[in-house]
């Protein structure tokens, strides 16, 4: 029998599932599949224990999903962590994303002859779609926008995922309400249709009449004149982040470190740049390690551009984008350890100065992302900026971000130390305010994610999780807006490009991506 555990941050193991027991066999192939929820922002270390009656064999942590063949064969160790002289065999794990979640339909609804519920004007109708649950009640799954003052409204297309509606023959309740700003929306009419029924309505170009349910004035339901039409019915596949990754797309990691004087002299213990001889990591090192640790798995060549800004380099002038490795020619380092080494040596060679400006670093990263487009469009770039301070020129940064917003690039900003990072929140446009440059250009998409380090320490969620949560969503939105599909996918097309801006007015997309991945323990070989 095999048991799958996930190794938590404190080292403890939590069981995720177990296979059935196969008796008397040295090469068992188990049938039982184990479902694991995939979370991009954490390195999920899976530990596989294979049990026999007396002895126990287990393996060390492994990351499967980024491998192309989705299958991994690993050697087993005994519980002390090494195989020793005995050949304890291998375990082969095959991981696959469960398919159900990818199908979606895009429906364009229209109504005619709706009843008027407003006194001095016409109704402001919107639709609400709910799914009937086993207990008999209904759970709303989505709603359209409100169309003002219109008894024959046409709404923008609505996307329903299979996860939301279950299956095509599942009955859905569609209610049409008159919007009231008090929140007391008045029901105009309702009807019950499955997704399959809606498809039929579309094909036959017929309308379905709304019904008013029985009330205290009326014992039976009333069929209304108002009708629902399905003007557009479009099946599509919503590709998920993992679809792209497993077909060869990759994330390229880049780092920029703040060398302004506000950090404090690195030799002093209270400096944010203090390198503790006992090995305790400072805030900068921690951020680099934690974020890099996750993203490095998605970067095939592990060569990371690394820069510093705000420091005075060997030639005496202050630079806002100097190579962290001190080299005059190349800005890349090898691996996370390369970044850490370059950072440590830069602390010796660079004098902290100022002011705090991000513009140049962002422009350089943007140029790298832009240039890579000529060779292929399978790379997505992630720039991590670690800073302790308040920006000197917010507009310069906004300008650089707006220019970069149409590129395959996301900017993650970590704020260390105790400064007031309020202006950083402006850059991370989660409140819906799109960034505007000084020339009137507006950001195509929100590519910034900002997290102050002090907010997450002591909390359950790690800094990495907070920063990386939005990343798969930003990645997928970029790809979808350009109709870039995962390779080797012979699938239904995405919605036609140009329909809808990548930065939609109503952000109804899910930011948090979590998938179901089933780990299928295929073979236990004795060699």
């Amino acid at each position, binding site marked *: 029998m095999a048991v799958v555990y996930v190794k938590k941050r404190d080292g403890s193991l939590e069981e995720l599932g177990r296979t059935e027991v196969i008796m008397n066999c040295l090469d068992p192939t188990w049938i039982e599949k184990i479902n694991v929820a995939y979370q991009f922002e954490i390195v999920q270390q899976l530990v596989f224990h294979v049990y026999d009656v007396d002895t126990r064999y287990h393996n060390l942590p492994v990351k499967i999903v980024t491998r192309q063949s989705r299958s991994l064969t690993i050697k087993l160790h005994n519980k002390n962590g090494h195989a020793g002289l005995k050949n304890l065999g291998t375990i082969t794990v095959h991981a696959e994303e469960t398919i159900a979640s990818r199908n979606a339909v895009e429906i364009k609804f229209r109504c005619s002859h709706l009843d008027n519920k407003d006194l001095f004007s016409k109704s402001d109708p919107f639709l609400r779609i709910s799914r009937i649950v086993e207990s008999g009640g209904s759970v709303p799954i989505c709603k359209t926008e409100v*169309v*003002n003052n*219109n008894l024959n*409204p*046409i709404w*923008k297309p609505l996307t329903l995922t299979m996860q939301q509606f279950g299956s095509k023959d599942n009955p859905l309740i569609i209610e049409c309400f008159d919007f009231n700003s008090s929140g007391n929306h008045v029901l105009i009419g309702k009807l019950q249709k499955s997704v399959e029924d809606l498809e039929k309505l579309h094909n036959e170009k017929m309308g379905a009449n709304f019904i008013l349910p029985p009330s205290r004035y009326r014992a039976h339901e009333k069929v209304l004149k108002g009708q629902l039409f399905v003007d557009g019915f479009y099946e599509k596949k919503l590709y998920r982040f993992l679809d792209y990754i497993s077909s060869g797309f990759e994330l390229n990691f880049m780092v920029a470190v703040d060398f302004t004087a506000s950090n404090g002299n690195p030799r002093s213990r209270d400096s944010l740049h203090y390198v503790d001889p006992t090995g305790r990591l400072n805030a900068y090192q921690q951020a680099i390690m934690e974020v890099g640790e996750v993203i490095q798995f998605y970067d095939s060549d592990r060569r990371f551009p690394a820069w510093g800004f705000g420091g005075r380099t060997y030639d005496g002038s202050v630079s806002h984008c100097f190579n962290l490795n001190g080299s005059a020619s190349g800005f890349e380092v090898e691996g996370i350890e390369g970044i850490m080494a370059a950072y440590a040596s830069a602390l010796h060679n660079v004098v902290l100065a100022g002011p705090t400006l991000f513009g140049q670093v962002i422009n350089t990263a943007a*140029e790298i992302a*832009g*240039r890579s*487009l*000529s*060779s292929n469009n399978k790379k997505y770039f992630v720039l991590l900026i670690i800073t302790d301070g308040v920006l000197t020129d917010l507009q310069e940064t906004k300008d650089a971000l707006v*220019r970069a917003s*149409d590129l395959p690039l996301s900017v993650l900003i970590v704020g260390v130390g105790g400064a007031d990072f309020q202006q950083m929140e402006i850059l991370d446009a989660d409140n819906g305010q*799109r960034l*505007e440059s000084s*020339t*009137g*250009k*507006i*950001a*195509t*998409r929100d590519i910034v994610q900002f997290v102050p380090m002090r907010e997450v320490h002591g909390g359950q969620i790690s800094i990495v999780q907070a920063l990386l949560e939005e990343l798969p969503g930003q990645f997928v939105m970029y790809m979808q*807006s*350009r109709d870039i599909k995962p390779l080797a996918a012979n699938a239904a097309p995405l919605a036609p*490009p*140009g*329909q*809808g*801006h*990548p*930065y939609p*007015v109503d952000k109804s997309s899910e930011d948090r991506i979590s998938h179901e991945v089933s780990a299928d323990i295929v073979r236990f070989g004795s060699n």
Partner: protein
Amino acid sequence: MATTSRALEVTVISGEGLRLDRRRPVKKNAFAVVRTNSRISRTTKTDIDGGSYPTWNEKIVVDFPSQARFLTVEVHCKTYSGEKIVGTARIPATDFAGGYFPDNYLHFLSYRLREDGKGERNGIINLSVRVKVPENRVSATMCSGGAVPWMGGPLAVEGCSSGVVTGVPVWHRYKY
């Protein structure tokens, strides 16, 4: 053969937050006009009920002369008292041509609309622009080495006879 103009595929996608006379939101009948210079312009269909958030999703192909520095997009609204200009955006050519982007890149762009009179802000226009690269032309390439490519990325070197420069590039590279 030197190219004197390029075809631009402009998809006018939508508008946001449009107002009339600085106060009232636009209720309906908004449309957009795409201009390359004062003579050439193309118009989208009118969005009858989109209100102050109209959606057009209309693709327009315009000829963009090489000397032109801006693409102008105006949003108009048909009202009872006639047609009014809601706002204008001037898009510098460098935002979609030149620089390190590959040819044929689909640029998604958004701009602040400003009223003509006092230049007050009035909404946002969302669009996409793609420079159409002509397929069967012999590109004006640099056959002698060492020259800097002017559209970023390697140019297609088709039918280039060695040793002779065959064309005169007409786009300047603007560094922003």
